[in-house]
């Protein structure tokens, strides 16, 4: 039984408090969106969970193990700009995590090929990152995170830099891949529609220092379909969250 438990995380940058006593839990197979205005501290929370940024206080437990301040160990991260290694082919980028773990070449390339095909990039194994479009690069970024078979997937505004059409396509792809390989997901975004479309549960964050304004359990069935974006419940939830965020900004 996998489980993520974040308790009482605090973080300040200099004298500016970014996170004050934040706690959250993610259950097995649950897709949780962290939604909030830009710069509110939700990305910092994600990086603390990833271990890239040290917390001032608080603990992070993954499957019962204390992973506070450590990277790796069951977590796969998808970065906003894909951030692929330009000197590695698409396939070698996907295999990176396994290479760091010491998996042999034949084995890791076979795994990487599987995930590269899964994200729809069959035939692009030997392409250099600069030869791929932004959307394709982010597909490689997603495959790279999946390839280490993490129990927790961390995504930091992964589609934020893409155009609307590409983002819609990649959202559907992500849902498809994730439904085939259910794992815990923490998805940072400032897109209300994106959060509603993808997540099981949304934590709506305030402006800085970030705290959870409201927790919303998304009532839609899976598999999710494009049409649900026109559903009246969807539109109502969207307006509700939008009002909530706007109120907070002016408060």
């Amino acid at each position, binding site marked *: 039984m996998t489980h993520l438990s974040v308790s009482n995380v605090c973080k300040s940058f200099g004298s500016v408090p970014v996170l004050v006593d934040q706690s959250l839990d993610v259950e097995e197979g649950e897709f949780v969106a962290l939604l909030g205005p830009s710069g509110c501290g939700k990305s910092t929370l994600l990086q603390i969970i*990833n*271990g*890239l940024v040290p917390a001032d206080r608080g603990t992070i437990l993954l499957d019962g193990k204390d992973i506070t301040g*450590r*990277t*790796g*160990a069951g*977590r796969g*991260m998808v*970065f906003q*700009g894909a*951030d692929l*290694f*330009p*000197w*590695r*082919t698409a396939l070698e980028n996907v295999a*990176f*995590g396994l*290479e*760091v*773990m010491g998996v042999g070449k034949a084995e890791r390339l076979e795994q990487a090929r599987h995930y590269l095909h899964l994200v729809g990039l069959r035939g692009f194994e030997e392409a*250099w990152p*600069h*030869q791929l479009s932004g959307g394709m690069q982010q597909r490689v970024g997603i495959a790279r995170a999946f390839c*280490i078979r993490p129990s927790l997937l961390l995504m930091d505004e992964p589609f934020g830099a893409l155009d609307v059409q590409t983002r819609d396509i990649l959202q559907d792809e992500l849902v498809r891949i994730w439904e085939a390989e259910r794992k815990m997901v923490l998805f940072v975004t400032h897109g209300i529609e994106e959060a509603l479309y993808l997540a099981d549960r949304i934590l709506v964050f305030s402006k800085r220092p970030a705290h959870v304004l409201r927790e919303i359990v998304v009532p839609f069935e899976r598999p999710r379909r494009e049409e649900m974006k026109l559903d009246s419940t969807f539109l109502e939830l969207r307006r509700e969250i939008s009002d909530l965020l706007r109120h907070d900004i002016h408060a």
Partner: protein
Amino acid sequence: MKLRSRLTNLLGIALMLLLWQLAGQNLGDALLATPVEAARALVATLREPGFWAALWQMMWQMTIGYLLALGIGVPLGIAMGRVPVVDAIVKPWASMFIVVSAAAVVPLFIILMGRGLLFSTAIVFVVTVWYVVVSVTEAARAVSPKLIDVARSFAASDAQRFRHVILPALHPYVMIAARVGFVHALRAMVTAEMFISAGYGGLLNNAGLDLSTAPLFALIVMLMVISLSATTLLRWAADRAAPWYASRTRDR
């Protein structure tokens, strides 16, 4: 497109040679030998065994100094770019020595080391190493912190981050430093040899005293040919070693 830019190149060269020829015909070969005369002198020079001996002496002595400069300059540059303490200690020296030309230090080095192999390799080393250090330092400092974060998030150790991120990120820049460093090394070597009237620099000295400027031009043209072939070879090696970089810069 490529063919067209090649043609434009050739046109530029032809135009230059034409101007040179016209100017040479007016000034006479004591002041400015024409390209035709220079070409004739070049053929004559290439037939002399003394020329090849001088060229060989210059090349192997220079190569020792050049390789030493790369062998020490590249690791030192990486250390300076990644470790602030090393940078703080070495940086002032690097920025002072980089402006010192070969000609300025040659007399001192002759007093200290005489006129042998030690002297010429030392000159080449001192002139080249700081150039390599400074360019590699800049490249090492500019390694994307984001990519280092990516490696960290996959739990890469310090050694793995060095091997999988810093080294490959530096690779193209080290190759560029090697290429430009070669030109610096060659220039320093010729200057040093001119001072002690030995090797290729000695030939240049003697040709300068000649009544015709044609042999001098022949020697200079040969230097250009050496420099161009070496940098072309180094570029080819760099493209083979870092195909991702070659492909990215070609597409641009």
